[in-house]
């Protein structure tokens, strides 16, 4: 019977918040905005790459020579200027007027003088900025050509020998468990993924904690609470409220996941059908599929690197524990104050550990294996945020489970204490409030 009472409270909390226009709008819009953001990044990457004809003004003749057949300036190192999709180089040694090189169809002019080999600087002149990617390619190609000029100016080396001697060390990650080695790598990227999830969890805990606080204060100020606790024990009411609101959060999280998957699949289907590629590609170019395009972009590549299944289960598990813990604390504070503003002031010490975990979590992207993280991932108040980062990087499963069990036990304890304070608090309509009074109620004293 008591269970069905809590169920009734849970159902009310869920229904009154989910069957609401604002909730439906928020739930529908966010995934669309998320997928829209990814789509915009992909389309902008492809769509905004306009063609550039770069005129390189090589006054000192460092990287160019005259082609005897055509009589035109050509690079001394043709291999330094590989064929690029949206970039074309032309060379000159005279300094043309801006109106002249623009009229000849060039979009960018690169100027440098003899000192370029010492100070490694030149000018990029344009009417419309060529964009970061194009600028990077121009710099890369010209740097290589300058390197070629330097090597050719040396008596000891020739270009082929230099190319042979040049050495770039590439370290491939291998993780060892003492006996066997497995393919590792990408800890930083995985740390970032974990941090994204923990940031999401942090946001949900704070936002939904705030909603619990508001709901409890509203029940107090509207005087509904006395009718309620005549039928339901205050502890049960608190539990029903926290769980009900938790289901609202879960509903939103799950809806977002499902809708995002559907929206992304639709976008992928439309993209791969070639509709977006039309008009963007030159003749004979084969449109790449969405995954290939995403893999080529630094940000969207991270999204492809996520183990969504594992992260999903861990997020839900730590959300449940963290939410029960923090939700109870928010409800306890809500029961002890007369207004939401007063409550917001009192929750600051409560969310400090969570905030601390969030800030430390940001640093963990640089070094996801740092020692402080291990300790904080075991501490129940910071575990919901920190453990997710470690899960993403690859924490031992027994640590994850034990940390979660500790979190759940602490949440249960806090729930019991919060219920005790809530019982006293919800009927307290006096002007007194604050942590001292709250602690008295937890101990079971006071009116």
């Amino acid at each position: 019977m008591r269970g069905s009472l809590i169920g009734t409270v849970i159902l009310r909390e869920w229904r009154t918040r989910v069957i609401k226009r604002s909730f439906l709008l928020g739930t529908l819009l966010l995934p669309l905005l998320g997928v829209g953001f990814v789509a915009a990044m992909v389309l902008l990457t492809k769509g905004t790459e306009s063609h550039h004809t770069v005129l390189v003004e090589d006054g000192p003749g460092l990287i160019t020579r005259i082609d005897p057949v055509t009589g035109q300036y050509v690079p001394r190192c043709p291999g330094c200027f590989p064929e690029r999709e949206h970039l074309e180089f032309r060379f000159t040694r005279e300094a043309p007027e801006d109106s002249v090189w623009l009229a000849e169809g060039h979009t960018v002019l690169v100027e440098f003088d003899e000192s370029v080999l010492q100070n490694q600087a030149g000018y990029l002149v344009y009417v419309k900025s060529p964009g970061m990617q194009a600028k990077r390619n121009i710099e890369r190609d010209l740097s290589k050509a300058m390197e070629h000029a330097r090597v050719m100016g040396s008596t000891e080396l020739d270009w082929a020998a230099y190319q042979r001697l040049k050495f770039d060390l590439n370290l491939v990650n291998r993780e060892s468990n003492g006996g066997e080695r497995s393919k590792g790598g990408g800890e930083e990227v995985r740390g970032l993924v974990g941090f994204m999830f923990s940031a999401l969890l942090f946001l949900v805990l704070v936002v939904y904690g705030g909603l619990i606080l508001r709901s409890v204060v509203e029940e107090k100020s509207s005087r509904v609470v006395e009718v309620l606790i005549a039928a339901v024990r205050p502890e049960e009411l608190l539990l029903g409220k926290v769980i009900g609101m938790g289901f609202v959060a879960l509903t939103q999280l799950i809806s977002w996941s499902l809708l995002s998957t559907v929206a992304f699949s639709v976008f992928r289907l439309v993209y791969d059908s070639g509709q977006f590629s039309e008009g963007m590609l030159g003749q004979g170019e084969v449109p790449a599929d969405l995954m290939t395009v995403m893999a080529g972009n630094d940000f969207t590549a991270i999204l492809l690197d996520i183990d969504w299944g594992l992260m999903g289960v861990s997020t839900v598990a730590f959300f449940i524990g963290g939410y029960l813990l923090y939700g109870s604390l928010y409800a306890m504070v809500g029961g002890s104050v007369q207004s939401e503003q007063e409550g917001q002031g009192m929750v600051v010490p409560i969310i400090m550990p969570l905030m601390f975990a969030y800030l430390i979590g940001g640093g963990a992207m640089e070094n996801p294996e740092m020692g402080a993280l291990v300790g904080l991932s075991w501490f129940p108040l910071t575990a919901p945020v920190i453990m997710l980062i470690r899960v993403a990087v690859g924490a031992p499963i027994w640590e994850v489970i034990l940390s979660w069990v500790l979190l759940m036990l602490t949440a249960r304890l806090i729930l019991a204490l919060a219920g005790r304070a809530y019982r006293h608090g919800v009927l307290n309509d006096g002007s007194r409030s604050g942590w001292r009074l709250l602690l008295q109620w937890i101990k079971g004293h006071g009116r």
Partner: protein
Amino acid sequence: MVKALSIEHLRKSFGSLHVLDGVSFDVQAGSIVGLLGPNGAGKSTLIRSIMGIVEPDGGTIALNGQPWNREAVRGIGYLPEERGLYRDMKVGEQAVYFARLKGMGRKEAIDALRIWFDRLEVDGWWDKKVSDISKGMAQKVQFICTVVHNPPLVILDEPLSGFDPINARRIVDTVRQLASSGTSILLSTHDMQSVERLCDEVVLLNRGKVVLSGEADALRESGWSGQQEVVFKGNDLAFTNAMGAMAELSGITEDSAPGLRRARIKLRQPDRTGDFLTAVGAVVEVVEFVKVRPTMESLFIGAVEQSTAEIPSET
């Protein structure tokens, strides 16, 4: 007969303040008991103790002959003084929620609520939000939520506050009907008129103690000072002369009915009513001769003043 509510030596203190100090009384099945007392007398604490919201320090509470238990409390219909509704919820949905908390099934709750909504003329407001209805309408919805599950015991704390006279009368009639159908009612109020109209018994609290209790009629009878009222048609002087030394005359006033006079007297020998009526009947036409019993209000004020003088203040 089984007592719907039985309270024995109930005590509750907040710090050094004894809010309830050995309170004892019963509510018989099917009766309406008025719980009276000045502000701070301990009425709300007493009710909250019955409802399990406040834990008493001592004493016992029995419900329907059984020791206090949470399930029995859930069956009580409780309308607290500090009451409200969720502003953002629809009226019907909210009423169903409260009924469900009282153990009713959804369909059963909807069926019963439809009947009550119709009875108190709030049908048509089912799908409206609470924020869109008037205060009086919200009061009626709260009353319905209190009684919809057909509770054997109903506790009403100031049920008429906020009602206009017409709706107050409607609630009074409904309470009376509930009692006549066997529901026991504990009514806490400062409205003495509703106490006189409704209550079979009263319990008067002051400073945490029961200072007066019993059947309403018996209390008024026992508080009778011997004053009587004579409504007559005739001359004031003739009436006074005829009365002579048989009674003390407090005064003669004009009655609301034209041509009638109203005299308030006290017989020096209460058993000589016949002689008195014969004497005055010879000179004026006696229309009515009644006892002037004290009002609940005067009993209340008298008992509170007396007990306040007797019970030392603790603050």
